[in-house]
């Protein structure tokens, strides 16, 4: 084992035990023991950035909102989990309406809408979120009081995850709040209301968020149990 190959804990321990029971072996193998100890691999912390979680099972604790109207906060949704977990990150995804019963688009209309949404950017620009635990003061605040913040600033999309690191105790609940920002993108009144084109008002459905999902990435240190 002194030829450069890494030693295992078991190999070194067995050699040490053999030396401890035989004075002759102890003298003859002391050099080998030293070499094998030096060839032990690095500690977990040096090779795995999250070595403390190397038995963790994988959870996505989420809430789903459908058909969120543009001018009101959606009823909050609650996650209540029956085991202790570490919350490691939060992601969100929203879906808008591309087509409406009132207006059957052409393929060019559809492509134009897709390009419009690409210009608007992430779907997380279209809604705001906040979350709190057990009805207590939320984590999203302006320093003094809880606020709803644009999802683009507080959630990730899997590619750029927003990391979190807090422990959720068994039976604690996460309450997730959601408010649409569609009216700020497509005003319906005021000085600059948005129309579908010059003649046709933008259908009400165009301002509805069809589906919004917020998930918390969680790790449970125990092996997964049967649900």
């Amino acid at each position, binding site marked *: 084992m002194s030829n450069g190959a890494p030693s295992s*804990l078991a190999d*070194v321990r067995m050699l040490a035990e053999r030396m401890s029971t035989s*004075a002759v072996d102890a003298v003859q193998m002391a050099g080998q023991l030293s070499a094998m100890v030096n060839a032990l691999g690095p500690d977990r912390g040096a090779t795995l950035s999250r070595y403390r979680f190397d038995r963790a099972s994988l959870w996505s604790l989420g809430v789903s909102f*459908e058909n969120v109207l543009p001018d009101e906060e959606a009823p909050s949704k*609650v996650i209540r989990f029956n085991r202790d977990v570490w919350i490691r990150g939060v992601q969100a995804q929203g879906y808008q*309406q591309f*087509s409406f019963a009132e207006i059957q688009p052409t393929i060019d209309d559809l492509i134009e809408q897709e390009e419009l949404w690409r210009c608007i950017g992430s779907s997380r620009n279209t809604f705001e979120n906040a979350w709190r635990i057990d009805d207590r003061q939320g984590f999203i605040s302006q320093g003094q009081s809880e606020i709803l913040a644009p999802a683009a600033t507080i959630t990730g999309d899997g590619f750029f995850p927003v990391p979190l690191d807090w422990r959720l105790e068994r039976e604690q609940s996460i309450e997730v709040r959601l408010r649409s920002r569609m009216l700020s993108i497509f005003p319906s009144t005021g000085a600059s209301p948005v129309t579908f084109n010059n003649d046709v008002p933008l259908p009400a459905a165009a301002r509805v968020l069809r589906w919004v999902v917020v998930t918390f990435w969680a790790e449970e240190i125990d092996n997964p149990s049967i649900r």
Partner: protein
Amino acid sequence: MLRSYLSNLAASAAADPSRASDIARHIARILADAEANGGDLPEGYIYSGAHTWEIQADNVDVEPVGNFDSPVGLPLTDTSNQPIPLKVPFDGLIMGIAGWAQPQAVHSPDIDHVTLKQVRASFCLSRVVDFRDLFSVEIGLDGTTTFGTDGNDRMLYPASTVVGSRLSPRPTAWTVRRNQRLQARFRNISNVSFADGSLGPDIFVPPLLSKIVLAFYVLNLEAP
């Protein structure tokens, strides 16, 4: 475990043979404790994360969604698609998970071709890397545990909120054992943004996902 401490002990044993036996006993006790606690060495670290397991689904079509006034079919967080299993070939540490899909433009029943504009519209539907907003996913283990939930029910969520991309996989540290069965259910959600009946079939049909892949990047915890 303090490697430097052990190293100094072993060096002392080599330098003073009269104490070698006692020192060896001490080292053996430290290492036995370390092994009992799972060891400070990551099992199998020398084997590197060279393995990738993939769960794949082919030609996944959309399911009815209705519209925002009258949703039909299953909830968006459920699917009628069956789970696809993967039998775990060896003890492994899953270090990351990524998802990817490929949309394929579909022609309407009346027309036997699609136009380039329809192909473009199919690909431009996605605004997330690797098309992960076009499908939802639920990961499970051994047919009984599913890891997408609100605490009460099993849920499929958009892949962009469950897994990472190929460039930036979701970091995990999840140990699975040989012969366990990983599984995944997929749903094509590329029609979520379209109210049923609002698109003429000659205009656009929500795309098929000709391939959905869930990739698990794995460290082998067994000796090769």
